[in-house]
């Protein structure tokens, strides 16, 4: 249990996939303008991350690894994720229209969201068990949500701030992200001591 909590909080805070690991920067910067869009995107990411982990972990450990096809990992995983996103989209559309309306618009973006591929590959590289992988993916997703929600708040201020002309738009957004990343650096070493 302790180990699971450590993995969870490490993924959320210490190794935040967005701010410390630089995954999913495109969507982090692209969709964090409005809070509701940020939350919707994050919910879709968490959902797909968990699904993708649940699908790729058994594929790797029960098919690819025994057959010594580990090198096919990247190709198989991205295909699985793409197929999964399609499938989820169709199922949601058909059986859960309210959820589809909430998440559907974000789903096509997610295939190329590197946090998804990143987290499933990392679960394999770190040789996590299935349960650990699921917890790590949940943590990665929650960390993404946290970063998105916090940053959407920051951006609503930054966009109206009076900054030098050359810093307007993209540069100041990146500098703001940098400062947020500094604050996440403060979590280093926290998690191991939290569950002593």
């Amino acid at each position, binding site marked *: 249990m302790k180990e699971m909590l450590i993995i969870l909080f490490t993924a959320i805070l210490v190794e935040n996939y967005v701010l410390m690991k630089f995954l999913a920067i495109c969507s982090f910067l692209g969709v964090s303008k409005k809070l509701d869009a940020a939350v919707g995107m994050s919910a879709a990411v968490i959902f797909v991350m968990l699904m993708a982990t649940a699908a790729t972990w058994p594929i790797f450990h029960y098919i690819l690894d025994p057959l010594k096809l580990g*090198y*096919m990992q990247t*190709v198989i995983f991205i*295909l699985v994720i793409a197929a999964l996103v399609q499938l989820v989209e169709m199922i949601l559309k058909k059986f859960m229209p309210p959820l589809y309306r909430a998440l559907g618009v974000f789903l096509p973006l997610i295939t190329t969201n590197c946090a998804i591929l990143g987290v499933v590959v990392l679960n394999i590289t770190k040789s996590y068990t299935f349960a650990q992988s699921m917890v790590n993916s949940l943590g990665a997703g929650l960390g993404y949500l946290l970063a998105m929600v916090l940053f959407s708040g920051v951006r609503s201020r930054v966009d109206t701030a009076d900054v030098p002309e050359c810093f307007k738009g993209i540069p100041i957004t990146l500098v703001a992200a940098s400062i947020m990343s500094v604050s996440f650096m403060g979590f280093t*070493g926290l998690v*191991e001591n939290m569950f*002593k």
Partner: protein
Amino acid sequence: MKAVKEFVVPAAVLTAICLVVSAALAGTYQLTEPVIEAAKRAEADASRVVVLPGGADFKEVTVSGVENIVEAYEAGNGAGYVITGKAKGYGGDLQVMAGIDKDGKIAGVKLMDNNETQGIGSKTGEDAYTSQYKGKDSTLEGVTAVSGATISSKAFQSAVTSIFQAYGSLAGVEVAAPEAEDYKTVVFPDVTEFTEVALDGAKAAYKAGDAGYVIVIEAAGGWEHAAGPMEIYVGVANNGKIAGVAVGENHEAPPSPETAVVLKQDYLSSYIGKTSPDDVDNVSGATQTSRGIKKGVRTAMELAPALIGDTTPQVDLTVAEDGSASAVIGAVRVEIDATGKVAGVFAADETADLASVAPEEVKEAMDNALAAYNASKGA
């Protein structure tokens, strides 16, 4: 026809592309695999050469019958062995890789996977600590712990000891275990001969020559987060007094320098000469550990009479007709007058001088004589 165009063709094309890509990758893999394996081996060998300079062509070997060994490699060129062992450190298992040359001496050690506290236990990974292992044989004589990181250092050393055992079984040589610090001699420094005696309630007990007994108590860890009990060595002199206290194996992690102090003789020597731990002060900042030691000492002192017998001093009391009395206790003769007051103190041996007797002993003799006199009056 439309259905074919809409569904079958796209699916067929995608499948075809997948197949071609898979085939191409399989080909690439076949070509690169031997090189990758070689590169991996070279990299792993490179890390082994760090601890065993001159080693090459490492082959994995299995070690049987030795615990706490992660992996072991033999250098194909006969330079020696590289063995990775583990031990429980402060933050979980820590792994140590050591190279042992063909003479059975350490060629190098390296701290591997570990979760030791950054800046404290992690110092066992630094050159200042690891370099002292170089050239040592299995006794590891002269290796000193990183101050403030005793637990990590001990774990490191224990991993190296396991490595030597593995080396012994691999190379087929007898390996001397490092001499554990003998806490019995810490509490009775002048005694060389200890014979084990049975004592219920103690972990072990030894008769320390003619000086007294050593009682070893396994007391609960004092520190609330201690991972295990602590071993307390209490030396009891024949007169029933504490001759010395030492703390053996323990898990009192020292997050504060105070805890480290409590475990050392500077503090523990304050027990010497006492009969109970009650008037020894706790060290502030390490109260829990201080209390833990006290508890252990108290248990030992409760058990001590079973070994040394009743230590109520033998008083040779002669009461005269007039009610005055004379008592000989050890080297002191105490004269008591009829009113029950001390009339004089002399050396028991007529020819000796009282000044040669320690003042404490004189005072004690007086007290004991009076106690015996009063007891005889009461009776």
